[in-house]
Structure formats: structure tokens, C-alpha cells
């Protein structure tokens, strides 16, 4: 596989309580090598579960996030009230444990070539209306389609 050199692109923060998405521009392909976003949780108690997805048309070609290990149990690494967590999207990561929950929360990404119009989304399950995603940036390799 040929690794490519990307540039860091930053994005406007969504409104409070809103998730983030962006689309690969027409005429281009993207490969995402990593990135991050800051999730500032409100005082409302909830198990917030961040996910990263790549969607092409109606096909979800990549989805990864934080969820319960066992269905029906409390998620192990949810973001709870008043936490400020940097979500880090990366191709592999070391062990996840409480350390990350209080500072960095790694989410598995994949450097796929995404065609034009593919949607890159950060979606937080149970996002509260006053939660805020900010400081969104990705290391993106861009090529003409």
C-alpha cells in the first residue's frame, strides 16, 4: 500500500446538540489518515457513544465507535455528564481504559479511498441538546477523482 501525504483540514463546529458531517467534494477522492474532535458534554446525564462513519450513497462502508461490549449492558466507555473528551480517530491504538475516558478516546478509523460525495460523519448516540463538538480536524490525502 502506498502511504500518502495529507494535509490537516479543519472544519466549522456544528451547532450545540448537533452531530458533524462533511462530504468529499466533487472531483476529488479523500483518504483520511487520522483526526480528532473535542466533545464537551453538558451536565445532563447520559451515556454518549461517539461513532465515525463513512457513507457512500446508501452504503455505510466504515463504522466504528464506542459501544457496549455486551448488548444490554452499560457502555464501557461512554462519555458522561460534564466530561470534555478528545475523540481521536486512528488506524490502530493501544489499550483503551479509564485513562482515555478522562482525556482521549480513540476510535478506529480506516484510510480508505473515499469517492466524491462520500459522507464522513461523527455521530454521538445520546447527544444532549447542549453538548458541543468542536476542534474538528482530519489529516486528509486528496487526489483528483
Amino acid at each position, binding site marked *: 500500500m*502506498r*502511504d*500518502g*501525504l*495529507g*494535509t*490537516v483540514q*479543519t472544519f466549522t463546529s456544528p451547532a450545540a446538540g448537533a452531530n458533524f458531517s462533511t462530504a468529499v467534494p466533487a472531483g476529488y477522492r479523500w483518504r483520511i*489518515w*487520522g*483526526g*480528532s474532535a473535542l466533545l464537551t458534554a453538558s451536565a445532563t446525564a447520559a451515556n454518549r457513544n461517539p461513532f465515525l462513519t463513512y457513507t457512500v450513497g446508501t452504503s455505510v462502508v466504515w*463504522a*466504528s*465507535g*464506542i*459501544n457496549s*461490549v455486551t448488548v444490554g449492558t452499560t457502555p*464501557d*466507555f461512554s462519555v458522561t455528564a460534564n466530561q470534555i473528551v*478528545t475523540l*481521536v480517530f*486512528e*488506524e*490502530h*491504538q*493501544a*489499550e*483503551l*481504559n*479509564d*485513562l*482515555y475516558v478522562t*482525556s*482521549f478516546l*480513540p*476510535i*478506529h478509523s480506516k484510510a480508505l479511498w473515499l469517492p466524491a460525495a462520500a459522507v464522513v460523519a461523527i455521530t454521538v448516540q445520546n447527544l444532549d441538546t447542549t453538548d458541543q463538538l468542536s*476542534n474538528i*480536524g*482530519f*489529516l486528509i*490525502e*486528496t*487526489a483528483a477523482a
Partner: protein
Amino acid sequence: MSVDGTGIGTIMTFANPAAGSDFSTTVPAGQAWRVWGGSCHIAASATSTNRTPTLYFKNGNTYIYVASNGQDYNHDANQTVVFHQQHAFQEGPPFLYVAGQVWNLTNNPAGLALNTIGIRAIWLPAGTIIRYFMFNMQAGDQMSQVGMLVEAVNV
């Protein structure tokens, strides 16, 4: 923009940070770097606390990569540890966490504890900060012998 590197790096060594300070260096202007591996020594002072060695790549406000073994592998007082970064050490699952994962090696042939984490050899654009640090670093802790196998290209 794409770059084909040779995959051949050279060892770069760096000055020791001051006691109690972490290490960081920045990809110079006009270059891109891929870090294929590296290590540094961490000598903990006599102060008892849970030190957690961590590595990140950060460009502006964007974290490109963060790795740490976390709280299971903290270092306590008076320990000397080689904080070792190894390429492709672990492929993470899409849904994270497998209880009981152990990636540490101890009692290596050099007789030092080896705290190994995985890194990713991503092309890092100019201005990216490579930082080794410890949560709960103490004033008397010392990082030393910082070295990395770096592939550098002009862009």
C-alpha cells in the same frame, strides 16, 4: 499530494528534556516525516504516583494519533523504563477493548522494563508535533535517550 518514500529511515536522536518535562519535536517546514519506531528512557523519581507514558502526533488543534498503554501499565517510583514505540504493533478492532490485553514486555534482555505501544507510520506534514509525555509526571522524573527511526522527505 502523494509522496512515495523509500521506507528507509535514519535514526534521529534528540536532546534530553529537562527533568520533569516531556519531550516534543516538530516536523520542520518543507519536510514530511514518517516515524517507523523509537524509544526513550524514563527514570521515575522517588515520588510514588501512577505515571502513564503516552505518545501523540498533533497538528494545530488536530490530533492525528494518540497511543498509550493506559492505567494498567503505570510506572511507580524509582522505576527505569524503556518507553518503546513499535510500528504496527497492534491492529485495533472496530469496536474497542478486549479485556486483559497485555502488550507489555518485562525483563527484556537488556534488563529493563519495556513498555511497548503501537505507532502508525503516517506521513506527518510540516508543523506536526511529536510528543512523548507522562500523565502524572513528577518534577524529578527524567526522559532521556530519545531516538526515532524517521523517514524524511522534502515536499
